[in-house]
Structures are given as structure tokens and as C-alpha cells.
């Protein structure tokens, strides 16, 4: 029962994280999607990131408590990187809201050019930060991807191959006239 719960959680995380990665890549290309999709996708991205954070809240609490105590070096590095990434994403969304022209127009305060520069710089940095985030979680990504995406696809293919090889009964009528 507990194993099934963990498995469901892993699958949920994998689906959400894949969606987040896709949304990030699409969101970073406003010239490909148009401004309306870019802005609404950005706002939805903020909600999805909050969900991602909530799903890993236990880890955040545990590492925060033990950050200056006994903690594996990689967890500390992960925590630092994730904190920077969180601030970067928050800056992207906030500056995006400030320069919004379609989704939330007229909310901007102060110099628009400054918000736009901040928005672009934070978006550029996010690509590098997400790359490092993925590299640090590479083993988990490989294992979960293999378990939920690759293996089911392979088993589906082999099932089809087996089905195509299945023997079909053929009835041969005896010629009674002979």
C-alpha cells in the first residue's frame, strides 16, 4: 500500500515536472507563441511552480532545519540552487506581471524598461539554473522516465508484436465428394 502511494507520488511529480519543463521552453519563446499565450502561460507556470513546491514541502522543511547541521553536501547544494531558482522564477513572474500587455494590462508601476530588462535577464538565467537543477536530479529523472515512459512504451510495442505473431486457427473443410 505504502509502495503504491510512493509510486503514485513519483508519477504525479514526473507528470508535473515534464509539464513545467515544456511550459518553460515554450514560455521562453514569446516570438513563437505570441504575447497572449506567453503571458497566460507565465501566470499558469507560477501556479504550477507553487504546486511543485508544495509537493516537495517536506524536503524543504527538513533541509532548512538541518542546513547548518549534519547534511549531505549534495542536499545543501540542491537547496542553494533551488533557492536561487525560486527567486529567479518569482522575479520572472513579478516582472512579467508588471510589463503585461494582454493578460493584466495597466498594472505596471515605475519604469517599464527596467522591468523588461529584469524580465529578460531573469529568463536567460532561468535556462542555466534549470539545466543545473535537471543535472542534479538526473538519476531520478532517468529512473522515473524509464519506469513510467520508456518501459510502458516498450511493453506496448512488444505486446503488439506478440499479437501480430499470434497463430490464427484455420478450418479446412474436408472434401466429402472424394
Amino acid at each position, binding site marked *: 500500500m505504502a509502495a503504491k502511494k510512493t509510486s503514485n507520488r513519483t508519477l504525479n511529480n514526473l507528470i508535473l515536472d515534464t509539464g513545467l519543463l515544456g511550459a518553460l521552453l515554450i514560455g521562453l519563446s514569446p*516570438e513563437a507563441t*505570441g504575447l*497572449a499565450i506567453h503571458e497566460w502561460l507565465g501566470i499558469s507556470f507560477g501556479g504550477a511552480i507553487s504546486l511543485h513546491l508544495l509537493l516537495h514541502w517536506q524536503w524543504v522543511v527538513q533541509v532548512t532545519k538541518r542546513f547548518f547541521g549534519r547534511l549531505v553536501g549534495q542536499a545543501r547544494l540542491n537547496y542553494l540552487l533551488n533557492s536561487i531558482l525560486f527567486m529567479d522564477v518569482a522575479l520572472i513572474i513579478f516582472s512579467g506581471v508588471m510589463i503585461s500587455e494582454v493578460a493584466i494590462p495597466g498594472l505596471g508601476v515605475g519604469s517599464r524598461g527596467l522591468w523588461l530588462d529584469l524580465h529578460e535577464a531573469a529568463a536567460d538565467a532561468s535556462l542555466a539554473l534549470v539545466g543545473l537543477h535537471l543535472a542534479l536530479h538526473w538519476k531520478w529523472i532517468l529512473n522515473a522516465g524509464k519506469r513510467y515512459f520508456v518501459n510502458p512504451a516498450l511493453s506496448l510495442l512488444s505486446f503488439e508484436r506478440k499479437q501480430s505473431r499470434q497463430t490464427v486457427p484455420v478450418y479446412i473443410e474436408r472434401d466429402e465428394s472424394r
Partner: protein
Amino acid sequence: MKNRTRNFAILMAIVLLAAGIWAAVGSPVVSQVRLPTTSRALLRPDADDDREEGEGYLADGDEDEGEFEDDDDYGGGGGILGNLATLAAIVVGALLFIRVATHIRQNLRRKAPEADEAP
């Protein structure tokens, strides 16, 4: 054996650094890939976008909301595939770095007891 590993790690670091500089400055292949706006401004000053201060994605007076006046109006971007390629390059670079760093660390750990045994 240990020296060979260390030499390999140093060589790998030099190759990665050279590849990074080449990619950022002038590779014809990677120039299609997303280059950060700030890096582009530093490395290719001639490629500055001509956006006026206070001007956003859309040119003033543009009535078609959600449409871009010109690709050049927006400073960055090599498209979705460009972003994916950049992300893949960063992930591969980081994985290589982690692998080399782990290798060096393990070798140093292995080396430490030998140093203690020495008279």
C-alpha cells in the same frame, strides 16, 4: 593511474572551457541557439536590439495585440528548439562536470590513507 585520471580531468576541463568560449563567441552552429541577452550584449555589441527605452514587445501604436512587430523587436530567443538545445548543452556540461568532480574526489579520498601511511 591516478596521474592519468588527473590529467584527463584537467584536459576535460580545458576542452569544456574552450568549447564554451567558442560557442558563446562565434560558432556558426551555436549562434542559432539561444544566447542570453546580457551575454549577447557583452560579446556582440553590434547585435544590440534597437528597442527604445520604455518600449515593450509591441511597437507603439500597434493595434494587433499579441502580434510582434518584428522578430528583432524582442531581444532574445532562438525558438523553442533553440532553448531545448541550450538546455541540453547545459545539462550535458553539468553532468560531465559532476562526473569529473566525483572522480577527482574519489581519487583524493583513496590517496589520503596512503599519505597517512608514509613515514
